[in-house]
């Protein structure tokens, strides 16, 4: 009962936010709707019992990525008039008829492929209750530092490289 309510709210937030992102003409508005959509995704993770993933989704995307996107948009500057001197749409919205048709068709094709792959699972699956909620933090921590230590370390070195690279690029050159 509670789980399905949470699922419906998060799913509506995700889909509605995603639709508004492509439908809105203003880039900053799109960013705010993206925030709502990412919140919905965090809610979906929470419904599935992945509490750690949901919280990290909040921190990384809602806290970091959206703010950085807003910042980047702000630094590029904006234009008030939407059409150029020939009366053409300078910033076409992402949600035009063409993009909706293309998006819908590709979604159809992808879902058919995925359904074909999952067909056996869906046919044989028993409808049942979700298992009792257990925290995933400890399991993820143990797995990251035992079985997946190589991937964990490689990704942290990648991030460190990106950090140093950003510092080097943004440093004012002498002379």
């Amino acid at each position, binding site marked *: 009962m509670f789980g399905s309510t949470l699922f419906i709210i998060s799913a509506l937030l995700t889909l509605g936010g995603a639709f508004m992102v492509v439908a809105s003409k203003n880039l*900053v508005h799109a960013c*705010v709707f993206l925030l709502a959509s990412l919140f919905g995704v965090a809610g979906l993770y929470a419904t599935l019992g992945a509490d750690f993933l949901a919280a990290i989704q909040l921190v990384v995307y*809602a806290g*970091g990525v959206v703010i950085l996107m*807003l910042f980047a948009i702000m630094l590029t500057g904006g234009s008030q008039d939407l059409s150029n001197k020939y009366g053409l749409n300078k910033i076409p919205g992402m949600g035009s008829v063409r993009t909706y048709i293309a998006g819908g068709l590709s979604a159809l094709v992808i879902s058919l492929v995925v359904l074909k792959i999952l067909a056996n699972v869906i046919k044989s699956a028993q409808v049942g209750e979700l298992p009792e909620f257990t925290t995933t933090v400890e399991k993820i921590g143990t797995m990251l530092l035992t079985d997946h230590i190589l991937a964990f370390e490689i990704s942290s070195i990648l991030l460190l490289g990106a950090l140093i690279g950003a510092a080097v690029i943004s440093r004012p050159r002498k002379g």
Partner: protein
Amino acid sequence: MNSVVSYFSQTEGYQAIVKTLSELLGFDATSLVAFIVFGAVVTIVVTVLATIGGLGTYAERKISADLQMRQGPNRVGPFGILQFLADGVKMILKEDIVPRQADRFLFNISPLLCLLGVFASLAVVPFSSGFTLVNLNVGIIYLLGVASIVGIGIFLGGYSSNSKWSMLGGMRGASQIISYEIPVTLSILAAVVIVGGLSFGAATEAQGGLPHQWLIFHNPFTFIAFFVLFIGSLAEANRAPFDLPEAESELVSGYHTEFTGMKFAFFALAEYIEVFVLCGVASALFLGGYKVPFDLGTGAIFSEKLGLHPMLAKNIGQLLQLGAFFTKALLLYYVVIWIRWTLPRLRVDHLMVLCWKYLTPIALFNLVGVAVWMYAFDGQSFFALIAKMGAAAGGHH
């Protein structure tokens, strides 16, 4: 996952209500009653915290008046304590002005985003062992995540009002908040390493009621980590000496220059409640949170010695815990206001230098230091080691 509902469900009255409702409605009413109880408690928490936010504005004026040898508000109510209600009435009656060139949609939602982030963070603040709305397993990360919505609200507020002052304030706010999140998170992680859990309940339960059992005095590194966390919290809540986003001597009023009436009040309210939440978090992680000395908080002692009903004894213990938590948080709140009226404002580049060249490296080395301490001394605190050495020295005689 235990929430405030699981505390109330221990009482007999709760079970009786569930039973009566189940018979009356013809289905199992457990979740319905849980939902209603939770809703009622959420309403209480939000109302109390909004009042604390309102009284925060009063405290700010009164304390600043004390520091500057003035009277402060003293007309409305005894000692002027109802001043914040008068301010609220004034704010509601003000005309709601939206600048003509403003981005209407963002202009309207940015105060709400600020309040949303602050109220969402109240869900995991550990007021007492029973009276925590939800004791999430990932409470600390959750709080860091939702607290950053406040930053988005400030930024959008500055952007949408189409004013250069607001814009500068909003950009300063955003850069300041994302920068200071790093030392704050690293210092919180220092506490997490010792506690071994990401929930505020676990963090508080790992400490004791007396100061030598608090995490701040666990080892030298946590002592530094607390101060890094406190300084970073000041910057995240845009409090002086880091109130650059609303620096009134340069930017009129910063990101909320163009806001009027209740929208302006929402920004102010969000700021004051956020300060309280951050003080509460600092006290829960490093100052023992709701822990009462001598285990009075569990209430076992009242039922044993005084012969009280176990539930009544538990309730008394909870009240003591609430008292301990609010005392610590409000003392920190006082320090925050005290700092605001003592220190001058930093310059923007000094602010960034302080964050990236001092606080971040200090927090990073602190984290490593705490990990080394945990490994070298088997997780024992400084005072436990001294007591052990004393016992060992005493054994030779």
